[in-house]
């Protein structure tokens, strides 16, 4: 197989990025609804890429993703909400100092959201990364649920079940895709570095990695914290996209972790590009499946809508993927021009032969 030269790779990448730029610049022509979906895709992308760093590349099965997203979302929303808005919303119990008297910009609030989530990742990781396999999954699941319950009950900090309302809808297409770009660069660069090799080695055989001199615990911790940071970022973007936050299990609870898990499994565990493809797939399919929740008219026959139907259908798709296509779309490998070239080349070759 011919190897694409460095020049060709760079050129194709530039063309691709310029193409995305023009697509995003003209996203508004698809209408308000679809440009919101395009923004959501990038937010999902960040959630998925950060999640696949832990669950795919490092091979530790965390179920705590929604917890970090929620922390990032609440932290940044509390920082960007106007003081008036806070006074208005927090009527059961006033917001504690100093949050009640500050308002900062979207960018610093997002970064702080990421840092706080990363800090929590460290706190959670420190005891639970000593557990293995299922126990780690259960510990992280419990953590995410505890975070949700704390949010639900700390009225003075989170406004409890009343939630946060009137969050500025700062998250534009550019913010979301810009952060996705940063996430992909950082996680991709990490994956393709000596540290990334160490993480992949850990995912295959932690004992052998240890004997090769790799400090498994701290490497897993590093991946977990980096992942937590970007999960927090995605949470901030999500908060300023959806503009209201509440601690129901279906919004920032285990359901969200499950969604992101679907994305990365469909895309291929451990693949950054696969995670994004999974996010795109999920965004579209979940929108499309929503039509089954309202009444559907099929050849004059009215099928009554069932609430929760889209989730059920998604789960069915998920199960099919797990049974017949466990590697997902990309497996562990990445989408590269070389792979695309090879793919089409063999296709054409088959037809000719």
């Amino acid at each position, binding site marked *: 197989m011919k190897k694409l030269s460095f020049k060709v790779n760079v050129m194709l990448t530039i063309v691709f990025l310029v193409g995305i730029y023009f697509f995003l610049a003209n996203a508004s022509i698809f209408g308000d609804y679809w440009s919101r979906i395009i923004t959501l895709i990038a937010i999902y992308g960040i959630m998925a890429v950060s999640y696949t760093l832990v669950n795919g590349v490092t091979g530790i099965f965390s179920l705590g993703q929604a917890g970090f997203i929620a922390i990032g979302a609440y932290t940044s929303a509390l920082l960007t909400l106007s003081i008036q808005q806070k006074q208005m919303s927090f009527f059961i119990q006033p917001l504690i100092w100093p949050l009640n008297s500050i308002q900062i910009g979207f960018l610093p609030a997002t970064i702080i959201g990421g840092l706080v989530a990363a800090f929590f990742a460290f706190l959670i990781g420190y005891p639970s990364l000593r557990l293995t396999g299922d126990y780690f999954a259960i510990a992280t699941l419990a953590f995410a649920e505890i975070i949700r319950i704390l949010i639900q009950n700390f009225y003075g900090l989170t406004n409890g079940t009343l939630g946060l309302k009137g969050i500025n809808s700062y998250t534009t297409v550019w913010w979301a895709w810009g952060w996705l770009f940063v996430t992909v660069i950082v996680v991709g660069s990490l994956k393709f570095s000596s540290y990334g*090799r160490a993480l992949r080695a850990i995912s295959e*055989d932690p004992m*052998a*990695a240890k004997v090769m*001199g790799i400090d498994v615990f701290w490497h897993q911790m590093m991946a977990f914290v980096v992942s937590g940071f970007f999960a927090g970022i995605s949470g901030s973007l999500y908060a300023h996209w959806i503009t209201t936050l509440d601690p129901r299990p279906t919004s920032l609870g285990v359901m969200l972790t499950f969604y992101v898990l679907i994305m990365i499994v469909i895309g291929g565990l451990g693949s950054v590009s696969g995670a994004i493809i999974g996010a795109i797939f999920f965004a579209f399919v979940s929108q499309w499946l929503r039509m089954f929740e309202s009444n559907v008219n099929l050849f004059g026959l009215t099928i009554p809508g069932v609430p929760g139907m889209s989730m059920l259908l998604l789960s069915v798709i998920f199960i099919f993927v797990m049974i017949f296509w466990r590697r997902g779309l990309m497996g562990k490998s990445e989408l590269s021009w070389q792979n695309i070239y090879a793919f089409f080349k063999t296709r054409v070759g088959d037809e000719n032969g």
Partner: protein
Amino acid sequence: MKMAENILDMDKITIKFGGLTAVDDFSMYINKGELVGLIGPNGAGKTTIFNIITGIYKPTAGKIVFKGIDITGLKPQLINQIGIARTFQNIRLFSDMTVLENIMVGQHSYFTNRKALNFLHTHDPKKYPKSLWRPWLFSAILKTPDYVKIEKVMKAKAFDLLGKMELQKYADFKASALPYGQQRKLEIARALATNPTLLILDEPAAGMNPQESQVLLESIRKIMKDFSLTILLIEHDMKFVMNICERIYVLDYGKLISHGNPEAVQNDKKVIEAYLGDEVYV
């Protein structure tokens, strides 16, 4: 005099798994530059001794001294960074990664061995200078020039190592795609990539035909010279052991039953009995 030469000194090592005493009051020393064999019938406790040396198991009693440092109970990664590398009886390569990547994983702790350097520093400040912290993780993510340079050096060294083990033509193969004998060689190469002074090999010739094990024998002798290594190996193939080892320890039911040069061990009545009770090897 003897103490100064010793690179490894195991003193009265005992390990119990529940009621089973897998290794019982076992003592052994290895001199610098020596090639020592560890033999014994199945289940004698040989692999368990390797697991104790590399820090996978903590001994119930006893002490292990490596290069004059008490390493009993240290973490496996630290023991490796201080200079002990191993292979496994049932090959444990990173099978989804390429041959080259396997080697480079072995080189990785070059970045993070600060802990080991500091450990050595507290042990002997004169011999081991204090290490400086570098934000290698950030360098690696940002692909700073010094990181890129190190990555290049790693790659060059890895190819060098592959060349020495005659594996360079497989560099881009997945490790799992290699033929069995080459996988064993790759595991040795990966261990060498961690820059050990003591290499311990768990049945390196297992599953090889006589020609293959002859080739392996030659290459073990060669790397031993090239890397000025000390080697401890477990092997069932008696011909192999008698050919290559300068000194042999014989283990049976976790106890040391004989020790000496190949002829002495071969003619030891206890050894013959132990093996006759099992299978006839000699």
